[in-house]
């Protein structure tokens, strides 16, 4: 034994030791990159990423989040430069374009779990030309008028049902030296929300179908229903309901004015509720409540607007070795427990998942019950960006008094015609 055995033992120890050490040193860590609109992952997403990493040893999730204004330029550079892109978290507008441009992988047949997991609105919202391109993850939003109950009490008003009632309340509040209504008018992409609401009514609650018909060139943007819808927004301005200089207010300014009690109402989406709770004074939070967009005419029914979570998709040129992992990741983030976690932090009124209720915040619950059942998808998730921009500019001009409704809609039609000349074809 002695010397020979000793040599064999040392050799074995060395071989085993080296194998263990090298397997540790050279173990290949897989990085899964998530590109998209998650800009502050530390609030919630980092915890979900960490849990996924625990479930998948050797996997590291890396978030590349950008504000929606800068996302496109960053993504284009990464895409053109051949950067590693695996999972995409997109907003509704980009999801449609990315699907039609072949950037999103067709997930039809790969995400069948959504059938039982998601509510119908969330299931269909990222389906284009009958194919599923993304999974809706997170919260479902809706819209309405937030108001300060204190000011309504002061003028003896209750929640308005019709526009006329709202206009009367606005005048009474204005007479007391308070601005009736504030809105982030400088943030130009917020203006179309108004026409989603007004066109929702003037189109006979058929705005989504009629939008598709318009984009197929079967209805013109100069149709009386569109003109009536944009004119209704102009009425808010003509009746002096908007705060002075509404087109100069950015998000922070508009919310600050409302929360500080300088304006009685604020139009917006349910995504504002967490901000109210975090930044608003106690007196404001005790008094803030919401009502549905008032009826423009007695025969109309209000139709709020909203979206259905982040579009979680897979990059079509993903390295095949990470494709399954990316699909697993999307399945993971859309699980009930994870969506519930996000909903609580973001105070969602409802979620994309059938089995996950929204936030327990009373205002969120109320809006979930009152507005959500009537909510239709944001029309700018369907419009091409050129039409969207034309609406943004047109509404701003109508509110600012530089254009009348007909001129604004003629401008939108003109922009759409240019697009058609360049070969635009609508994908349902």
């Amino acid at each position, binding site marked *: 034994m002695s010397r020979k055995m000793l040599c064999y033992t040392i050799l074995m120890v060395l071989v085993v030791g080296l194998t263990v050490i090298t397997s540790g040193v050279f173990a290949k860590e897989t990085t899964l990159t998530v590109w998209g609109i998650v800009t502050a992952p530390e609030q919630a997403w980092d915890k979900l990423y960490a849990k996924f990493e625990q479930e998948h040893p050797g996997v590291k999730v890396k978030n590349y989040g950008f504000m929606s204004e800068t996302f496109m330029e960053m993504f284009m550079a990464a895409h053109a430069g051949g950067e590693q892109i695996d999972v995409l978290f997109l907003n509704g507008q980009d999801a449609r374009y990315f699907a039609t441009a072949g950037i999103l992988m067709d997930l039809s047949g790969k995400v069948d779990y959504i059938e039982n997991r998601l509510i119908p609105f969330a299931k269909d919202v990222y389906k284009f030309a009958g194919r599923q391109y993304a999974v809706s993850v997170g919260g479902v939003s809706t819209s309405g008028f937030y108001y300060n109950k204190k000011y309504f009490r002061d003028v003896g008003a209750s929640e308005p049902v019709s526009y006329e009632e709202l206009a009367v309340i606005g005048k009474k509040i204005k007479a007391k030296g308070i601005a009736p209504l504030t809105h982030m008018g400088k943030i130009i992409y917020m203006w179309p929300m108004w026409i989603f609401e007004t066109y929702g009514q003037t189109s006979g609650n058929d705005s989504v179908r009629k939008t598709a018909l318009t984009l197929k060139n079967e209805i013109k943007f100069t149709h009386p229903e569109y003109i009536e819808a944009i004119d209704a927004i102009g009425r808010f301005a003509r009746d002096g309901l908007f705060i002075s*200089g*509404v087109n100069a207010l*950015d998000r922070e300014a508009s919310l600050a004015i409302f929360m500080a009690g300088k304006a009685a109402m604020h139009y917006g989406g349910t995504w504002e509720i967490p901000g109210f709770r975090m930044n608003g004074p106690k007196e404001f939070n005790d008094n803030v409540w919401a009502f549905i967009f008032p009826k423009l005419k007695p025969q109309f029914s209000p139709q709020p607007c909203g979206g259905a979570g982040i579009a979680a998709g897979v990059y079509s040129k993903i390295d095949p070795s990470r494709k399954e992992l990316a699909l697993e990741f999307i399945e993971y983030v859309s699980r009930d427990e994870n969506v519930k976690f996000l909903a609580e932090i973001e105070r969602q009124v409802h979620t994309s998942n059938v089995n996950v209720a929204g936030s327990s915040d009373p205002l969120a619950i109320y809006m979930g019950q009152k507005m959500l059942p009537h909510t239709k998808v944001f029309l700018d998730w369907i419009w091409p960006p050129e039409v969207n921009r034309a609406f943004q500019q047109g509404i701003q001009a109508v509110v600012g008094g530089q254009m009348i409704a007909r001129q604004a809609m003629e401008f939108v039609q003109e922009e759409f015609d240019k697009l058609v000349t360049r070969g635009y074809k609508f994908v349902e």
Partner: protein
Amino acid sequence: MDWGWLFSPTFSVFGLVIMNWWRRFYNKNAIYFTAYFLIVPALILYIVFRVYPIVYGGYISLQEWDGLRPMKFIGLKNFSEVLFNDRLFKVSLLHNTIYALGTVTGKNLLGLFLALLLNERLRGRTIFRTILFMPVVMSFVAVGILWSWILNPAFGLLNTLLQGLHLNFLIREWITDPRIALYSLIGIDIWKWTGFHMVIFLAALQSIPQTFYEAAMIDGASKRQFFWHVTIHLLVPVTTFNVLISLIGAFNVFDLVFVVTQGGPFHATEVVLTHMYIQAFKFYRVGYGTAIAYTLFVIIFILSLLQMRIMQGKKYEF
């Protein structure tokens, strides 16, 4: 392989001859080798990060490209659309021209005036110079946000101040009224850059030799004659530089407009670069956006040449 030939006498002699030639050649041109050696790193960076993107940008401008799908060559179609079919490009260019007229004149006149003032022996001169230069070092985004709040019609400092001074007739919707929004932007730009032009004028004023003034004094020149016939004439080269810099800046303006008005209301403050940005990154027309950028480049190039030709004709040297 047989490497024996390396040690053959013929090869050794040949090697010596080559080495000798190289040594003499190197010694003769050593200075150039050193210069090239020192330039190469910067040159490589310049080519990679400046020349290549410019050339590649030219290539992209000839394509139909959304930044996502493969490019499609369409020749000069983008340029033809920019020049003949894009009404908004012309509107934007007009806004740039108005912006240039306003800012170039404003910044340079004010800069010169302040430089003349601060060239005098004033108490607290250094403090004034520092204060006036401070906006220059602030980022355009910060300046834009700051002025958006000052000019805000609802709660802005300016309107509140005018109200406090009982000058209500002057109260305006500074950045949302399409008739004045562009001029508000011009005002902000002048506020930001005047200090920069002032410093350049100041440096030039201080470098004018006293002998010119002494000679003029002996000739019996008045203060006004000093100013027009000595100071202004000797400031021509610096004025050329200042005008050129501010002209280029005026046609390249983007961030201020984007932060304060985003080109609105209804294109009232749209400039060429905001139009280019919207086309390239919002409408997914990267090829077209690049063609707009190239058209603007040619316009600025021609304007700069013209301006230099006109002003260099009046050059005085000392």
